[in-house]
């Protein structure tokens, strides 16, 4: 935490209780937009990807899928786009219109409220699709299916997609103290046994920042989505992973994060939402394991990561992680599977 005497000097939130500051940032839907715009890694990466590639945007027609406050649309106009169409289902589009007007870009940006499947675009085809569609764990409440629909319907042959690559990574972490706090909490609630809530807590992946020093294995990439080629079917998958243990330690949880790449750029731009790099509002996703694995350097954890939209509500994700610790030591051998629900 910041030492308190710095509070008065600049950052207005610095002197406040943490929860207070958090409250400002997330109280309502404006808070969400504020949080996203303030996520520097995210917004700057998009800005750089667009500004540094004026040669790609010059005189092009651009479609911004899920435009929100239209920041990406305005970046595209500044980069030289002929026209930008921003589409969003939410009423935020009214605010976006005001913002675009205030910044003198109303003639360059057409904003449409509605479903991508239903709106009528002022152009038959677009040259470039830009979108910030990623959700927690990449795919939770993500708009990727909408982006793919827009690609198939509107993108010209050889058109560009910003970003165009997304990769999911996994790693194992030591997290004894916090697991105990989060899951063990239900063992004793004000002197009562609340363990019926424990099983539920175990099935809920936690979206949280993980400190690099708790990461016990090498990261392993599990899935790369190429947005030029992938289909909605690719978003349901069951794929193997293998984690190399880097040091003797315990493993309480598997974490997942994603990297994003704008490979159409003159100099490719990437950002990561992993534990090794700068904070983003996506943080990492933590999946607690039933067992605690006792691991030695050089051993491997192998298993499969399965993800599919829930049958009941396709916005929810059903995630299954199987794991097996490969070790000679039969006392430490362990295998199992965790089933999780993001909803």
């Amino acid at each position: 935490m910041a030492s308190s005497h710095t509070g008065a000097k600049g950052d207005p939130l610095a002197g406040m209780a943490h929860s207070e500051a958090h409250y400002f940032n997330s109280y309502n839907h404006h808070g969400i937009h504020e949080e996203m715009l303030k996520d520097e890694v995210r917004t700057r990466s998009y800005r750089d990807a667009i500004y540094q590639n004026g040669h790609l945007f010059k005189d092009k027609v651009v479609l911004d899928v899920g435009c929100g406050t239209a920041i990406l649309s305005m970046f595209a106009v500044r980069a030289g786009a002929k026209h930008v169409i921003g589409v969003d289902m939410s009423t935020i589009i009214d605010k976006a219109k005001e913002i675009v007007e205030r910044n003198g870009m109303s003639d360059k940006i057409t904003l449409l409220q509605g479903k991508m499947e239903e709106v009528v675009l002022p152009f038959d085809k677009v040259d470039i699709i830009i979108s910030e569609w990623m959700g927690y764990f990449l795919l939770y409440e993500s708009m990727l299916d909408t982006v793919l629909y827009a690609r198939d319907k509107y993108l010209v042959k050889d058109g560009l997609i910003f970003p165009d690559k997304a990769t999911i990574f996994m790693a194992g972490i030591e997290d004894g103290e916090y697991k105990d706090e989060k899951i063990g909490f239900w063992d004793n609630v004000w002197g009562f046994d609340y363990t019926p809530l424990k099983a539920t807590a175990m099935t809920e992946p936690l979206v949280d920042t993980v400190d690099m020093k708790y990461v016990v294995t090498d990261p392993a990439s599990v899935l790369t989505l190429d947005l030029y080629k992938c289909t909605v079917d690719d978003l349901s998958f069951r794929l193997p992973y293998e984690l190399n243990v880097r040091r003797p330690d315990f493993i309480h949880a598997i974490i997942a994060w994603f990297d994003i790449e704008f490979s159409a750029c003159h100099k490719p731009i990437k950002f990561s939402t992993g534990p090794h790099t700068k904070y983003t509002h996506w943080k990492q996703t933590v999946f607690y394991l039933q067992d605690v694995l006792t691991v030695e350097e050089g051993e491997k954890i192998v298993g499969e990561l399965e993800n599919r939209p829930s049958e009941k509500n396709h916005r929810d994700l059903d995630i299954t992680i199987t794991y097996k610790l490969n070790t000679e030591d039969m006392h430490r051998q362990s295998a199992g599977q965790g089933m999780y629900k993001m909803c």
Partner: protein
Amino acid sequence: MSDTESDTASSVGEILEDISEADTSTFKCLFCDEQWSRVQDMFAHCTKEHGFDVENTIKKLGQDIDELTVIKLINYLRLEAQKSIAPAEIKVDTETLADDKYLQPTLTDDALLFELGDFMPDADSKAIDYDEYEAALQKNVGGNVEKLSLDNDRDTDYFESYKGNAIHREMIEDRVRTEGYRDFIEKNAELFKGKTVLDVGCGTGILSLFCARAGAKRVLAVDNSDIANRARDNIARNGYSDKIEVIQGRIEDFHMQRKIGKEKVDIIISEWMGYGLLFEGMLDSVLRARDLYLKEDGLMVPSHCTMRIAPISDREWISDASGEKFWKDVYGFDFTSMIPGGILNQREIGVFDVPSKSIGGEASTFYQLDLKHIQIRDLDFTAPFSTKLGSSSASIDAFAIWFDTFFLPGEKSQDATAIDVAKWGDHGEAGLGFSTGPYSTYTHWHQAVLLLGDEDRKKEVKGSSTLKGKVTYKKPRKDDRGIDVTVEWEAEGAQGPVSGSSKLTMGA
């Protein structure tokens, strides 16, 4: 607020998840121990106090230097400073900085290394690529990256503060609220012994369990949500199934009346309070339950609530809270359109932890709810208040409204307004009640904030004078769960009396 839906596993997840957002990195001066929260301020300090212009030094390295060189420069300067070399004596040239040993951070967790993008010669077109930095560091310096604490200290802070806050928040929020109830029940176990208790909106069943443990003969725990199933599990696991009966359904319906039976109950317990006390309208159900099921001489827990109001005079805080500062410049665009719909505005009541220093006058109690006798129609009301303004208050920006909750059984109750809440500890007075005001430990209720109109905010008021006004709470016709709140006020101004009026809503 009822804990009906808020104490489930998932909401703990949400609470936990929501916490780590504020950015509280600090930047240590390159040459002394002072900490700054903005890089610009720190650099200005270096120029002024140490005679070393960092930005100019970066410029002098030439247009073509890359981000790694700037990072090396910072590490180099810190290293030299550690050798007690006077800032003005430090020699900076590109040859020195060619050495990759300066990639290694001099300070562990040096937040500055991640904020240098804006100080690049061509800041607008070049983003610092930290992956590249990390790769270079691993390649050129080697060793164990983990030991270098390369990850931004901001991340570490987030994680650490988050850990701390998670416990903190669970403890404190539950402490003020849950401990408030628990202390009353445990200190007054004789009131519960052998009695029948109705828990309205039981949530996970915690209040019912407290009552049963204190000796209640029978507890009826009612909740309309599916959480009732979990409450049942919790109660079974703690061996109280014979004492506590969980019933899922609406408290008012016929089916419920049959289940509860003709025998009335001795005590009704409920945690029904919402933002601004009455938002969410759960009190209506509690009062209907009282009229249907409570014995004539029965006890309401809690027994009283008082509502309090105080003026806020703090432009700076308002500007932050309304987001005005942030929206003025978003990556070079004007986003002020977002402000009118922002979190603090002149239409909707905001919910904030108001810093006590922002309060510009004495708190005034304007309404008392005696839960035993109050009627649903009394929840729409107009009530006067009067407050002495602080000596330095020159204008009013907003009003803060909060409530205090009391547990006053039997004949010692009557007038809760006579109790001096200011004398309570931060967490309330054990067994007597708790406050949700700006002077006490914060609770999940925070305070309700009513921002005044721009014209009213400009009106000058005289410090130390008395401001008088009235507060009106009214449910909008079509929205049972929302509230319209109107505050009318008058005060002494610089040239004669000034007055104002604001009407805001808290809607679903």
